[in-house]
Structures are given as structure tokens and as C-alpha cells.
């Protein structure tokens, strides 16, 4: 009986999400009808656009890739009840460090060079977020604030390097030199930009899921996240689990930056990763912090993005209108996810 009650809650959650989806799409349709002179075309491209050709579809999936990494980073932190709001800076810095390494490596770096760059990106993110974890452990500094502040400062440093010492004067963009083509991830869905890192993202989600639910560290992280007093009582070294989840979270963010450079951008353009960190929070919320749920949640987010782009290209919708429609859907979904999450946290006696 108790089991069915639990299963029922899960079902109710899914039904709730579907209802919210329905409502938000309806609201979006109403907005489009009000704001567009060719509403049918707009609606078509908004909702079906991403599926009309390989180019759109592949690019949509490609947009989802960094969001999978950042979403996972946030999910790991939230599951452990630590808060990493420094995603933006961690992704950006990770991307820059990967670029710098790939630019410095000799022409024939190949495989090991790519791995080294990704590792460095990962390490950069881990260090940045880990600092906030350590501050929390040593002096009880709120990691939510410190990660945000550190990240905000880091963004300016990265901007300085991209527009200053590392700027490619030959390029019209504010960007570094391009990395060697031997370091580009293999495209797997031409003509779209979708590349082999999609596999990496899926692997990462599986790995994080395994880590959280099947290993010692995951168990201790989750237990600390659910109830620190209980964990301390049970003999878990709780102060470790302020730092470790932050490091992991930062690592995943840094990786997002590295992967975006090697897969999509191939140069560190100023603010190339803008939004990836914040959107990761949204993705994790929709996924209710479930690492496997992050995959569909990231794709959904990317779908909204791709739909808006397609609508802008093919109908009279301006960027602003597309953004409004996109955010309405998004706010509703997030609110629903947030509500469910809060009810879950409050829950039972």
C-alpha cells in the first residue's frame, strides 16, 4: 500500500508536468496569435520548426550538450544541498583554459592534447567552485554568495584575456585564435553542428547517475544533502561533503566550457558561454536533480531555443517576441518544478 502511494506521487508528478506543459504551450499560442501577423506560420515554426530538417534538429541537440553538463553540475550540488551559483564563470573559464592549451600545443597534439585540454577545463571549474566549498568548510562562508561573486569576477578576467592578450587581430570578432582543426570534435550529423560530444554528454549523465546512486561517495553526498544532522550522527564526515559536491559541480561546468569550444565554437569568442550556467540551473530544476532526467530536460530547453530561432527566421517574429514566448513557457515549467521540489523538501512530518 505504501509503495503504491509512493508510485502514485511519481505519477502525479509526471501528470503535473504534462499539464503544465499543455498550459504553457496554450499560453504561448495565445501570445503568438496576439503578437504575430502570421500566427499560423509562427506557431508552426515555433513548435515544429526544430524537427523540419536535419540542420535544425542537429543544432537543437547540439545546444543541449553544454546544458547537460551544467545541468548535471547543478543537480550534483543541489542533491547534496550545496548551492553553486557560479556556473557562468566556471563554464567561461573552463572554455578559455581549454582554448589556451590547445593553442599552445604543437600542431600534432592530436588525441592526448584534446584530453589534456578537457582535463584542464574540468580542473579549472573544479578549482573555482572548490574554493567556495573550502571557504564554507573553513569559515562557514555562504557558498551560494561566494560562488556567485567569484564567478562574476572570473568573467571579467576571461573577458580581459579574450579581448586583450589573446585577441586575434585578424578576426572581426572579439575572439582568440581558432584552435587547430585536429582538435575539433567529429561532426556526426551534417550539415548540423552536432558532434561526437553528444555521446560524451550522455555518458556523463550515466556516470553521474551511477556515482550518485551506486557508490559510496554518492550515497554520502545524498545523505548529507537530505539531512546533515543524521549524517553526522551516522558517522559521515559531513564537512567533506560541502567541498566535494562543489568540486564535482565545478568540474562538470568547466567541462561544459571545454566541450563547447572543441565541439561548436573552435575559438573562444567573448561571452560565447553566456547563459549556459544559469540555464543549467533551470535544466536541473526541470529534471528534479535526477542525473538521467537532465538529458530530456536539456533537450527540452534546447528545443524551446531552436523553436524561437526558427520562428524568427521564417516569420515576422522578432527576437524580443520569441524571447517572451520562450520565457513564458520556461517560467511556468520552472515554477512547476520548483513547486514540486519545495513540496518534496517540506513533505512528511
Amino acid at each position, binding site marked *: 500500500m*505504501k*509503495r503504491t*502511494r*509512493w508510485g502514485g506521487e511519481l505519477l502525479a508528478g509526471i501528470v503535473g508536468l504534462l499539464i503544465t506543459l499543455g498550459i504553457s504551450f496554450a499560453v504561448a499560442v495565445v501570445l503568438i496569435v496576439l503578437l504575430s501577423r502570421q500566427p499560423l506560420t509562427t506557431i508552426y515554426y515555433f513548435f515544429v520548426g526544430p524537427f523540419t530538417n536535419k540542420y535544425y534538429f542537429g543544432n537543437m541537440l547540439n545546444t543541449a550538450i553544454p546544458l547537460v553538463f551544467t545541468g548535471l553540475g547543478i543537480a550534483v550540488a543541489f542533491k547534496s544541498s550545496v548551492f553553486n551559483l557560479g556556473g557562468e564563470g566556471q563554464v567561461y573559464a573552463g572554455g578559455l583554459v581549454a582554448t589556451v592549451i590547445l593553442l599552445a600545443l604543437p600542431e600534432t597534439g592530436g588525441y592526448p592534447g584534446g584530453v589534456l585540454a578537457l582535463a584542464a577545463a574540468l580542473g579549472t571549474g573544479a578549482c573555482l567552485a572548490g574554493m567556495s566549498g573550502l571557504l564554507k568548510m573553513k569559515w562557514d562562508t555562504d557558498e551560494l554568495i561566494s560562488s556567485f561573486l567569484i564567478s562574476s569576477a572570473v568573467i571579467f578576467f576571461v573577458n580581459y584575456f579574450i579581448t586583450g592578450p589573446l585577441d586575434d587581430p585578424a578576426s572581426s570578432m572579439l575572439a582568440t585564435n581558432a584552435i587547430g582543426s585536429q582538435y575539433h570534435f567529429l561532426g556526426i550529423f551534417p550539415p548540423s553542428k552536432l558532434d561526437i560530444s553528444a555521446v560524451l554528454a550522455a555518458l556523463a549523465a550515466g556516470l553521474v547517475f551511477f556515482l550518485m546512486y*551506486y*557508490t*559510496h*561517495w554518492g*550515497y*554520502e553526498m*545524498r*545523505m548529507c544533502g*537530505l*539531512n546533515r*544532522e*543524521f*549524517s*553526522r*550522527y*551516522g*558517522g*559521515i*564526515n559531513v564537512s567533506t561533503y560541502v567541498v566535494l559536491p562543489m568540486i564535482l559541480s565545478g568540474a562538470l561546468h568547466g567541462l561544459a566550457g571545454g566541450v563547447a569550444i572543441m565541439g561548436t565554437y573552435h575559438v573562444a569568442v567573448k561571452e560565447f558561454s553566456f547563459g549556459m550556467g544559469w540555464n543549467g540551473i533551470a535544466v536541473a530544476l526541470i529534471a528534479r536533480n535526477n542525473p538521467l532526467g537532465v538529458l530530456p530536460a536539456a533537450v527540452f530547453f534546447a528545443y524551446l531555443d531552436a523553436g524561437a530561432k526558427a520562428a524568427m527566421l521564417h516569420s515576422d517574429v522578432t527576437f524580443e517576441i520569441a524571447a517572451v514566448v520562450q520565457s513564458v513557457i520556461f517560467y511556468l515549467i520552472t515554477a512547476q518544478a520548483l513547486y514540486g521540489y519545495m513540496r*518534496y*523538501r517540506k*513533505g*512528511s*512530518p
Partner: protein
Amino acid sequence: MSSDSYLRMQGITKQYPENKVLANKRVDFTVEENEIHAVVGENGAGKTTLMKILYGLEQPDSGRILLRGREVRIHSPLDANRLGIGMVHQHFRLIPEFTIAENVVLGIEPRRRGIFFDREGAVRRVEEVIRRYGFAIAATLPVSRLTVGQMQLVEIIKILYREADLLILDEPTSVLTEQQIHKLFVTLEHLRGIGKTIVIITHKLGEVKAVSQRVTVMRKGEVVAVRNTAEVDERELSRLMVGKSVTFQFEREPLHRGRVVLELQDVVLRHKRQDHPLLDHLDLKVHAGEIVGVAGVSGNGLAELEDVVGGLRRVSEGRMLHDGMDITDLSAVQLRARGLAYVPADRLYRGSSLHASVLENMIISSHHDFLRGGIFQQQAVARFVDSLTGKFSIDGDPRVPIGTLSGGNIQKVILARELASQTDFIVFSEPTWGLDVASAEFIYKKILDIRRQGIAVLLISSNLDEILALCDTLVVLYRGRLVASLGNESDLSKELVGEYMMGLREDFPGRGGQTRGVSP
């Protein structure tokens, strides 16, 4: 009672839906105008619930409240304030960074031009209240600089500022030193002298005699006696509070006392905000095969002893030994590695993690045993969990969150987990609090089983019946001090232990008797 009593609460019944505990059973409570009325009773007797109902923090299931003969409905503390009822909570609700004046006016601040906080006005008004009631304290002092006694005075000023005529004080003396208690009583007497009516909740009988005119005794949710304080002595009050012995029928095999397993030597625990030490030079030995019961009324050091022995709180002075080895500075992690088993009083937040599954709760202290290369061996976990659920007849799928189980079943899971560890020593704190009779009996049998296996047991409990039924040796804590160490012979009466608990007797005077002030 005359029908024109100042306050009458009639037939108040309150059951908490969360744990189905009947906290108040048809309680009648009457307070006359201009008296100091004490409400006494053990933990869980229903005193605080009754006062929360009066102050609008809880709603009764049935019953009515008459103030000056007129029926009133009190839905919130705001209603209570409007009716002239104010309450000083056991734990102060002050903001340390604010001044006295700012704390006092918080919520009903005087304003300038409708929106700006009128700081000078606040100071002026609060100083006026202080002067009117004859206190001596500067309204501009920040609360962080005050002693505990002064903070309490601020709480009283706070309710006087709101023009309360009926003051409720919930265990006001538990954090005070003797001198501060004396000062408080002078204040209360003074307030009574100028026409206020005061209800004071306490467990301390000496204080009842010292300050009140009348006393209401509560036990297990009911009013068992109302007396004029002058006509009752402390022994009688103590007997009324603890009630008749309930004899549990348990066969306790004769004691085979083995080696000393746990020893506390001269343990002191201080708290920076409290002038009185929480544990005051405590000495205690627990032998293998022996159940040592620690009795006492809450607020006298039981919870702190639990924290210290459970490794969750460092002692300020003294040593703890396990099998002769110094464990004073070991963390909970290290104590767990030495086989510490511990069933905490707070089973919902410390003893279990409500959103985690039964399985995850069961392996919290032993999960290291199921790992290979950091990865859980699912089958080994399943075998372990199955054996525990079988042995303790815990029904249902172990993958459901433990929060969906009943209180009795949650406690069974905790017990199963703690008894599974290889240990020679186990701490129980309030093991049957709030449980139904069947669950309680199950737990008693388990505790006696453990004793038979030659394990040392420390049983901390404010339930005297439980302690008398199970223990070989019984010690009593009063104001953080050990005031008695008694063999649990058949002639040991509940009344006698009750007197120790209430501070009417003590066997070790002079031992750390002086309270030491902590310099600010």
C-alpha cells in the same frame, strides 16, 4: 472556583495529528486576577501545549476560554496580544545585533511620516516603559552585550510594551543562575504588586514555593491537582507530578557486572551563551552487562549528556574512556568506527533521514562494509537489509522513504540498525517517547536482550517508569549535576527518585556545587 475568575479554560482537549498524542485531556485551568500561578508537571505533561493554546499558537480540538467571564477566541498571538496576554518563550526570540529598544518595538515600530522607522521615538517609548515598571537597564544597549538574565528582562519588557496584563513565562529559570533567578522573582513579585497576573511554567518545585500563590499540577495531559501554594509541601507536589508507579512486568536476570566499558571522568560542558554549565563535573561508569539509567527532568543535562556520549558535542573539561582508552576528542566518525551504537532521542531528524529510503537509513553507519572499490555490492546490502527487516518484523518495501512509516516502525528501523553494529556499548535516549505500548514493550525486551549479551547500556530517559523497570543502576541529573547514584533494588521508590529529580534531595553536595560565571 468563583465564576468571575480572571481566566478560565474549560474542557480543553488537544490531540496532535502528527503523532496522535493526546496532549491535553479535558483540562480545566483557572487563574485569579493578580496572582502568580505556577503550572508544574513532567516533560510531556501538557503544560506547554496548554499555554500555547492560551497564547493562540495552537488551536484546541474542543473546550473554551473565558477571560473576565467573557468567552474569547484566540487564533493567533496577535489575538492574544490584543486581549492583553503576553508570553515569554523558553528560548529567547531576540535579535542580538539590535538594541533593546529595537527588539522591544519589533513588529509594532513607531513610525515617522508613515514609512520611516522612528528610532528616537522607539527609545523614548521603551525607556518610558522601563521607568514605569521600575527596571534599570538602558534601552540603547545592543542585546548581544546582555547577560542571559537581562535578555529575559528584555523579553518581559517586550510584552509589557504591548500592554499585557497576563504574562505567561515558559520555564523562565532553566537558563539562569541562582542570582538571576532571584532577581527574576523579585521582578515578578513587583509586577504582581502593580496589578499584573502571571502564569509560570516550571519543573522546579522550590521555585513554585518561592514565587507562586497557587499551583496547578499536570500529568499526562490532565490536571491532577490545584492547590494553594502555602498549603502544599514540595514532597507532595513531587508525588503528584510523578504519580503512582506503573509496574512493568519484566524478568531481569541477576546482574553480572563485567569490566568498565564506558567511563566519564569529571566531565564539564559549558555553553558560551549560558552562565550555568550544562554538565557540571560529571562522573559515571557503565559496566559490561549493566544498564545504567540516567533520570532527570528535561533541561537538567540529559540531552547534553546524550550529545557528549554520542560524539556530537565536545566536552569543555574532563575525559571519556572506552575500554580504558581515551575517546574524549574522537569525532562521531571515529566513535562509529569503534563500534558506537546510539539510539537518539530525536528519532525524526537525528536518528533518521525522513526522505531517504528505509534501506538508506539502515546502512548509514555500516555502509563501508558493503563496498568494493567504492561501489556498493547490491546483493550484500540487500542481504543485510533483509536480515534486519526479518529480525525486527519491519513490513513493507525497504525502498520507500522512512518518513512514510509510523513512529513505532521508524524506531524499529533505528534500533535494528544500531543493534546490528558490533559493539560492547550502546546509548539509548528516550527510546520509547511518544510510542504506543506495544512498540515500547518490544523495545524494552530488546534492551534486556542486549544486557543479557553482556553489552554495556546507558539509558537516558525522563520516563521514570521505564528507568525503574530496566535499570541496574540509576543516576539522577539535576541542573547538570549528578545528585544521586542508586542501585535499583525493589524497595527503590518512584517518589524518592522523583525528589532527587526535582532537586529536593542530593547525595553529593559540594561536588561542583558552585556555579561558575563565564566572563562575557
